[in-house]
């Protein structure tokens, strides 16, 4: 029963894909997308109710700076495996990562947005999220990284199935959160009917703002095995989630109007760079020795200013 039905579904999807893909081809230029808006509002020949059929053609370029940590590299690769609509590019020299080179690269790859992992000093990971031709872009500090390889994350799901994305309600609180939500939704959401995507939904992303950080989690949706046929009736209560990973926590630093640059739209007023934190810690440690020396000299001064009285019994035994 189940098998037959599935066949008919896949057959139904395939022809649609073809006739959508065919007429668009001539509009693609050598340099990729000219304008993002244009891309979204391209008229489609597909006969449907509304004349302007929306089609999501997001492509994300994922790349990182040189000398990235293995752990952060694994995190990046995990994200690559989660986003079927991404293109992974070679490492970029971090000095040349300022703006224009990256934009050029993205344009060359024909992508509409980018995730750029920048590792500094082998321990701090910054993530850039940018939508390419004309902004905006965000720089995050990435914290609390756990990769998918960790054995405590026991879930698994289809590669390329489209994720459900849940956002906590406090994304609606401020303008910058709203903007971030939109960007995240566009970058992390797999486009519908993407050729590498699979027709089912078996995992869910969590984006939640806690303590002014965006926390990311990825869960597998699992129901008891023999019951997934009968999901329709009672499975909803038995639905459980198993974490797949990766985990990370994004601390927004700045939002820029352009892609990888441009005027600053937002700046996190609470942000302290990890360098400053480390410097402070070091200074605290350095103070310890100075304090000791100071105490010693003080003691010496004190002894000099208040000399002991001569001992009356000092030469008692000399006679």
């Amino acid at each position: 029963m189940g098998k037959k039905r599935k066949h008919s579904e896949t057959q139904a999807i395939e022809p649609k894909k073809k006739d959508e893909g065919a007429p668009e081809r001539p509009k693609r230029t050598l340099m990729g997308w000219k304008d993002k808006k244009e891309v979204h509002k391209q008229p489609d020949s597909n006969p449907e109710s509304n004349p302007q059929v929306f089609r999501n053609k997001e492509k994300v370029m994922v790349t990182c700076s040189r000398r990235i940590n293995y752990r952060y590299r694994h995190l990046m690769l995990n994200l690559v495996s989660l986003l079927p609509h991404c293109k992974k590019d070679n490492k970029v020299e971090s000095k040349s990562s300022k703006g224009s080179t990256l934009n050029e690269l993205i344009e060359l790859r024909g992508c509409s947005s980018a995730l750029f992992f920048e590792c500094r000093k082998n321990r701090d990971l910054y993530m850039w999220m940018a939508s390419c031709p004309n902004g905006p872009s965000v720089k995050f500090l990435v914290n609390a990284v756990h990769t998918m390889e960790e054995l405590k994350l026991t879930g698994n799901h289809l590669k390329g199935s489209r994720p459900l994305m849940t956002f906590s309600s406090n994304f609606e609180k401020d303008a910058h959160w709203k903007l971030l939500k939109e960007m995240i939704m566009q970058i992390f959401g797999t486009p519908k009917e993407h050729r590498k995507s699979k027709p089912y939904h078996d995992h869910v992303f969590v984006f939640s703002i806690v303590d002014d950080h965006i926390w990311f989690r990825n869960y597998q949706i699992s129901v008891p095995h023999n019951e997934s046929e009968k999901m329709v009736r009672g499975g909803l209560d038995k639905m459980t989630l198993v974490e797949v990973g990766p985990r990370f926590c994004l601390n927004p630093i700045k939002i820029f109007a352009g892609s990888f640059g441009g005027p600053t739209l937002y700046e996190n007023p609470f942000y302290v760079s990890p360098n400053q934190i480390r410097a402070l810690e070091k200074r605290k440690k350095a103070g310890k020795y100075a304090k000791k020396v100071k105490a010693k000299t003080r003691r010496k001064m004190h002894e000099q200013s208040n000399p002991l009285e001569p001992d009356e019994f000092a030469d008692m035994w000399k006679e």
Partner: protein
Amino acid sequence: MGLRIKDLSFLQPENAADDDVDDEMDPHSEEEESESESESEQEDVKLMEPSKTAVYNQEGLVEKLEDISWPENVDWMHKLSLDVDQVKEVDVNDDLARELAFYTQALEGTRLAFDKFQSMGLPFLRPPDYYAEMVKTDAHMQKVKGKLLAQKRQIEEAEERRKAREAKRIAKEVQAEKLKERAKQKKQEIEEVKKWRKQRQQSGFKDGKDSMKDLGFGEGKAFERSSKKRPGVSPGDRSGGKAKQGGGKGNNKNKKNREFRDSKFGFGGRKGMKKQNTAETTNDFRTLNKGSVAGNKKRKR
């Protein structure tokens, strides 16, 4: 989390100076290169109060949002996004509460999504016979499974050990009880014997052997040999045939060896007779010669 927030209070003035994200690594870069790796990379420190110079361009943000956002009437199927209310404020440092909040958010979201898919009549979960490439490889999942199993086994072993310990304790108690019982019985029996003697003394040893029967010794309980003694044990064996029993089958070879040695060197009996010289041994010089010859040889070398 190495640092507390209040430690940072004197950091604020200088913070304003090098606030720019792009320059942030320059002021301290040399002195930190050699720093130890021990500090966790996950320090999460915030400023006490928001810095005043921070930019917040509300109009720009809204404009950008309008710029990039998809048209209003986009089908939900394209977005697949769900907003879930956070029930209450979550404490970041409480790991369990935080993860639970994320979990509930995800679960609620999937339930909502499930309803939507139901109403649209679209497939939701993957059927069990749909096999395709997964995010994690089979090898990796095998590892995960192995770890889970190992964990389970560890727990079971710990449980077993605990049980064994418990059982040992109980056995000890039982043994103590038994010993007490035995001592008590012995005391009682001695008492009885004393009583019987007194009685006999009082009656002037008249009734002879008959009185024995009145006193419960007649039952043969007290003087009965313990039933633990095995049949076929020699009368001199104090261990009651238990001494040799320990080895069991494996000692068979040892036993033979012993027998052979006994036959060769003799076993039991007085030693003194053997060690004394007799007329024969005093006239026998063979043993003496042997020793001296060996000594000579050594000297020559």
